[in-house]
């Protein structure tokens, strides 16, 4: 497979995953503003901004609608939901011969839908129709990807993009909650804090799944254990890393000859460290440091994928 095609596949699914994550995060936080809370709106929205990677010194001006508009609808805002959908579609458009017609049509349709839902001004911003459209669109794309595209190298690159983005975004979210909520919480959760943790679980579509395992009894330890270390829940970090590792392994099998040793070492190490970790151990040490470690490894895996499959140096490749 051409490196450029692999690159576009990887980013198509990464951008879609990012759009879905961002819109859910924004939508849930906007919903939480309805409840009376001790947490100020500013603090919550700063948390949202931090979770999607904005620098801590970003300006805050009280206008929530303008902010939501910027995060969801502004195509010129890097990382906004609309910008992510446009980027996913552009990537797919350039490899139309490599993806199926059904995949292209879902993405194209999603793009046209969000053009239609764009509010005429920031004050008209509302997500009631927009958020489900994005989430459904992303799910439809994943569905047709699984049922119409051969599960070969191209499909594997789509998986890598999606699960690497998910692992990285979830880690970031946990890190933000850890610093902003956990470190300021007492032994027993009161009603307000309860609300915050529900918000976190729902952002990861994990509330129902969590309750099935632990009942609605929320503790930080269990939430951390579930989102970080659960082996079966598709939005947990461990699950995402497992799937990413599996796909990287399949890609390595297919493209014999290239030196993927370092990439597989880093990915394998991350996978096993999550498989053998215990939540008590992590809490006894420094959870923030642990989460940042995962972040760094995700970043490192991204760079290694580029080094091995996409932007490898010509000299290295010729020497093999």
């Amino acid at each position, binding site marked *: *497979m*051409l*490196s*450029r095609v*692999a690159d576009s596949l990887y980013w198509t699914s990464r951008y879609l995953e990012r759009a879905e994550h961002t819109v859910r995060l924004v939508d849930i936080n906007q919903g939480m503003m309805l409840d009376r809370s001790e947490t100020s709106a500013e603090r919550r929205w700063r948390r949202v901004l931090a979770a999607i990677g904005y620098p801590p010194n970003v300006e805050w001006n009280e206008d929530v609608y303008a902010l939501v508009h910027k995060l969801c609808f502004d195509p010129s805002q890097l990382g906004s939901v609309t910008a992510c959908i446009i980027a996913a579609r552009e990537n797919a*458009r*350039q490899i*139309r*011969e490599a993806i199926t017609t059904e995949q292209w049509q879902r993405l194209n349709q999603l793009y046209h839908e969000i053009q239609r839902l764009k509010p005429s001004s920031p004050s008209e911003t509302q997500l009631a129709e927009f958020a489900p459209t994005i989430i459904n669109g992303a799910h439809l794309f994943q569905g047709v990807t699984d049922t119409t595209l051969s599960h070969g*190298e191209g499909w594997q690159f789509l998986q890598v993009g999606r699960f690497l983005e998910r692992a990285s975004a979830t880690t970031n979210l946990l890190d933000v909650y850890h610093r902003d909520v956990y470190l300021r919480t007492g032994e027993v959760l009161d009603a307000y804090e309860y609300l915050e943790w529900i918000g976190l679980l729902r952002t990861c579509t994990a509330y129902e799944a969590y309750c099935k395992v632990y009942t609605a009894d929320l503790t930080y330890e269990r939430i951390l254990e579930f989102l970080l270390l659960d082996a079966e829940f598709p939005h947990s970090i461990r699950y995402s890393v497992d799937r990413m590792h599996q796909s990287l392994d399949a*890609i390595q099998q*297919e*493209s*014999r*000859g*290239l030196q993927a040793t370092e990439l597989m070492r880093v990915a394998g190490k991350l996978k096993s460290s999550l498989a053998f970790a215990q939540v008590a151990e992590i809490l006894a040490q420094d959870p923030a440091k642990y989460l940042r470690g995962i972040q760094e490894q995700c970043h490192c895996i991204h760079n290694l994928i580029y080094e091995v*499959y*996409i932007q*490898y140096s*010509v000299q290295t*490749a*010729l020497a*093999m």
Partner: protein
Amino acid sequence: MNTFLGNDAHAHLLPDYSLDGAFDEMFTPDGVIRPHYEALLNVLSQMPREELQRRKQSADYSFLMQGITFTVYGRQEGTERIFPYDLVPRLVTGAEWDRIERGLTQRITALNLFLHDVYHEGKILSQGVIPREIVYSCHHFRRQMRGLQVPRNVYVAVAGTDLLRMSNGEYVVLEDNLRVPSGVSYMLTNRRIMKRTLPILFRNYGVRPIEHYTQALLSTLRSIAPEGRPEPTIVLLTPGVYNSAYFEHTYLARQMGIELVEGRDLVTHDNIVYMRTTAGLKRVDVIYRRVDDDFIDPLAFRSDSILGAAGLFNAYRAGNVTLGNAFGTGVADDKALYAYVPAIIRYYLNEDPILNNVETYLMTDKSQRQHTIENLDKLVVKAVGESGGYGMLIGPQSSQADREEFRRRIEANPRNYIAQPTLDFSRSPCLLEDGSVEPRHVDLRPYILYGDKVTIVPGGLTRVALRKGSLVVNSSQGGGSKDTWVLG
């Protein structure tokens, strides 16, 4: 003017079908239907109008759904449109086609010999058959190609020659497209949709098949691979997603099962071209390039090009990669050189041309220029390097100011212009919006493959000037296309 054509059964289908000086593909000048059109006309007139329109809509929908579109330039986001399509096939008899095929084979053979000669000894120039200045002043002449040996001496591997049919029924050559001719994907998809739209008629006519085109193209490309590469890797080089023919590039790559690459996918090292794949660098042997000469290698040609691959030309010179078509083929489809093609055929093959040229006046010749300037209102003037219907003056439809402008341009740069009589080329029946049939002007572009042998799939792209009375068939200017059925 004859207003009643065919018999009573056809009257409702042809309310405004009129004949004039132009050759009509369906009727003789006396209004008698040509025998090979009879079955087609009967089927069309027996079909209710609604049924015809329904089939037309279903064909249009099929084009749209498959994304068979071209990009219209001039807006910020390229607008994608369907290529307008006409449901009534153009019929060509077996005897007519056989003559066309022989004529095109003769022409492509002579033009390849000519290209080899001008880039080597230049005998045709030293013997004065063609003036040197015509060749050396051509914008598409590539000095870099001098003395370069190309596999099998194939310069033009793929050509798309535009033919017109004159009022006496004779097919003549309007232009040879020897650089990167496009449109073949429309020929192939038109046929697929036609078979679905009028299946029984298609079968009864015994139309010669064209579906082997992509396979023939692949084997032509394989036959020009560098020596010692028995299992060559062939790729299609596209300028990318913003090119108007991007659909065609993805279509052909998919049909041939070869990689569709962009310039940034290619790397040249030690005069060998590689493509970057996830499994490392893979050597490329033949490039079917759909990028113009100027843009193909920023080191050898335009340095601002980001569509090509640096070092490609040196690899080509070293014989490690073949390009179809070769660099510098544009010198043979220059509109001024065109006037000399009959002489080229006689010189290299010692035969008379089977297909004639359109009469052409060279502006570099004083008396021909004088004649042109005096008759600008009757002639068509074309810039030699332009295509797609741009940069031309159609005398009878021009204003005084247009003509004055062209007179100035011709006198300022005579080498850049040629003139031809306004051609009254043939018309073919077309289905209108309201379900009736009227004649419209058509040309024919067959696709010629030249490798270890010459392959011309029977037919080609028939382009239609859909506007009544219009003579311009280019898709950028209101043209459409229809399927071409070569019979028996």
